[in-house]
């Protein structure tokens, strides 16, 4: 995506565009009431001239790649849009009505045209555009993802609505692509609350994810900051009943407990202990997946030894101990992360997660932050959480009870057994000895008595005295 203009390339056309935009912006700033009246304002004669052709539904252009670019504009919708006030020339300042349609203007494909057109949006909405440029959406566009949205995908090219319209359940543009997530949200306590007439306190998409600076939701601590933005007293409330509440807040994502029907997993993230951040895959030099594959000899997911080897590969000579693993418990899909229930239904029973075989620990992934921030995952066997090898490799993640090391259980049983066996064995030996000694003593006494009854030659009368 071309997101910057080349220096020193101010042509007459761009100058004209900038001039018109500056004039329109200046007008709107000086006369802010104009915004409110925009919807009511009739189209100018110049706009009507444009619409004379562009209101035709079949008006389209065949592109070089044989795609068809629709040139149709709904006049009513445009007149009612927030851009109605700036007219067609506000965005299409490069069009010269005398030579239009320009025969020299070449559009390769629709997508490329949409991406190039974002430059026009940037002209007025530089702040929002800057936010967008830092988003995962823009990152995906740069990577050539054809589904990643540009300005017009969310706002529509000729029917840009006021901000308030996008902040409604009916018109929020996010649901166009994120259907499953939106449906999950709509069924959540947030979605239900937002659907109530006059209710706007419950968050819609942009309140948690922001409208333009959309970040990777599964990176870092996810949207915890957004949750705590509204639920500022959450930590204090949890500390009243939840031991190690701060640790839980760090390691467990909010939906893990607050979306009780969601499936959970443990994500072991490669962490740079020197830079104090998650290890990122460098663009163009992917190492994680190839290293994971070579460590996973059997191809059945990383076992404890393979995980240890993978970590060793990231801690080569001179970098020992630099890369560690930090675990985080999260829900498996974005849709599940939005199935937030009423807090009375949230998981608060410690046994659900801390018992052996808990659902949350049946699925394990190892991940690294991809070049665009999205995690790149590789599957691991659940046994990695219970292996003695993990004391070294997964030192940074431990859930009491659920991820306990099997070898320690065996040692505990041996200890308990020896604690009982030693006294019992000692008592038995003591009893057996006493019995033996008593028997020997009785035999000796009996022998003495027999001897007394049948004196041997040479015996003196009276015999041996008893001991």
């Amino acid at each position: 995506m071309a997101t910057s203009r080349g220096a020193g390339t101010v042509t007459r056309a761009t100058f004209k565009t900038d001039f018109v935009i500056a004039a329109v912006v200046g007008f709107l700033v000086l006369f802010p009431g104009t915004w409110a009246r925009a919807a009511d304002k009739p189209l100018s004669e110049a706009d009507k001239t444009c619409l004379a052709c562009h209101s035709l539904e079949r008006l389209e252009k065949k592109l070089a790649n044989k795609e068809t670019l629709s040139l149709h504009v709904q006049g009513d919708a445009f007149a009612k849009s927030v851009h109605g006030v700036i007219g067609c020339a506000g965005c299409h300042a490069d069009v010269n009505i005398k030579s239009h349609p320009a025969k020299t203007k070449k559009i390769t494909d629709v997508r490329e045209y949409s991406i190039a057109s974002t430059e026009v949006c940037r002209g007025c909405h530089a702040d929002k555009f800057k936010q967008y440029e830092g988003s995962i959406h823009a990152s995906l566009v740069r990577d050539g993802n054809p589904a990643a949205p540009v300005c017009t995908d969310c706002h529509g090219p000729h029917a840009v609505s006021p901000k308030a319209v996008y902040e409604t359940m009916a018109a929020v543009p996010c649901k166009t692509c994120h259907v499953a997530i939106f449906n999950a949200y709509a069924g959540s306590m947030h979605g239900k609350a937002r659907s109530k007439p006059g209710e706007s306190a419950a968050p819609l998409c942009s309140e948690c994810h922001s409208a333009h600076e959309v970040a990777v939701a599964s990176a870092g601590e996810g949207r915890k900051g957004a949750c705590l933005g509204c639920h500022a007293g959450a930590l204090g409330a949890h500390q009243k009943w939840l031991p190690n509440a701060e640790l839980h807040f760090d390691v467990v994502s909010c939906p893990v407990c607050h979306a009780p029907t969601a499936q959970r997993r443990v994500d072991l993230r490669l962490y740079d202990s020197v830079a104090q951040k998650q290890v990122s895959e460098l663009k163009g030099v992917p190492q994680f997946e190839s290293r994971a594959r070579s460590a996973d000899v059997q191809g059945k997911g990383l076992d404890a030894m393979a995980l240890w080897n993978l970590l060793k590969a990231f801690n080569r000579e001179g970098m020992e101990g630099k890369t560690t693993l930090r675990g985080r418990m999260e829900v498996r899909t974005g849709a599940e992360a939005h199935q937030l229930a009423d807090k009375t239904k949230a998981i608060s029973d410690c046994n659900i997660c801390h018992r052996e075989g808990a659902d949350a620990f049946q699925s394990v992934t190892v991940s690294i932050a991809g070049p665009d921030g999205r995690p790149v995952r590789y599957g691991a066997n659940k046994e990695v959480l219970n292996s003695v090898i993990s004391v070294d490799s997964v030192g940074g993640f431990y859930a009491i009870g659920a991820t306990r090391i099997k070898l320690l259980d065996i040692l505990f049983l041996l200890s308990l057994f020896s604690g009982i066996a030693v006294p019992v064995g000692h008592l038995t030996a003591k009893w057996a000895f006493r019995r033996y000694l008593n028997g020997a003593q009785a035999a000796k006494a009996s022998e003495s008595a027999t001897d007394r009854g049948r004196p041997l030659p040479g015996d003196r009368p009276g015999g041996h005295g008893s001991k």
Partner: protein
Amino acid sequence: MERIYVHPLPVRLWHWVNAVGFVVMIVTGIQIRYVGLIDMMSFRTAVNLHNWTGFLLIGNFFIWLLFYLFSDKIKAYHPELSPTKHFRASFRQLQYYGYGIFRGDPNPHHVSVYRKFNPMQSMLYQVMMMLIVPVQFYTGILLWDVKRFSGAVDMLGGVRVVDTVHVLIFIFFTSYILIHAYLGTLGHTPTAHFKEMFTGYVEVETEHGRKQPH
């Protein structure tokens, strides 16, 4: 037969608080570790009880430490500096428990005010009170609030490492406390040592007596 005052009140208090406390720690520890398999109490109750008892035991440890630091009774813990002498005496003691006691042999160790521990006890208790118990307290505190002590936890290799050390010592104490209680019955009567730890007085053998403390 003679009665000598061997266990002063602070030591006896420390001992019994320790004894009850360690049993509580082991029981709640088992409940915490084996939640789902054992259901003596709720996980949260077990954690809270474990934490509070842990702090009580740490305080109790300082009763012991301060008493001995400011008392000449600390001689009881002074190590035998000659290894040959120490191991010979330990072997004699081991031989007594492993064989001599069955035959009714006399205990080779003779209790006095400043030598209340037999050679095996003196070695074990030094290691235990100066190393094992403090390490258990330290790891316990780190696990009590992992976030607050995250610097120390990370320096030691992570929460799993700290927990493993804590659990290994718990495993040791599980068999220790059972065997310790049993050895307590091996006095001249089965209850003699228990009574000593309540009254402070130990009955020792005189020239004409036959009674033997272990």
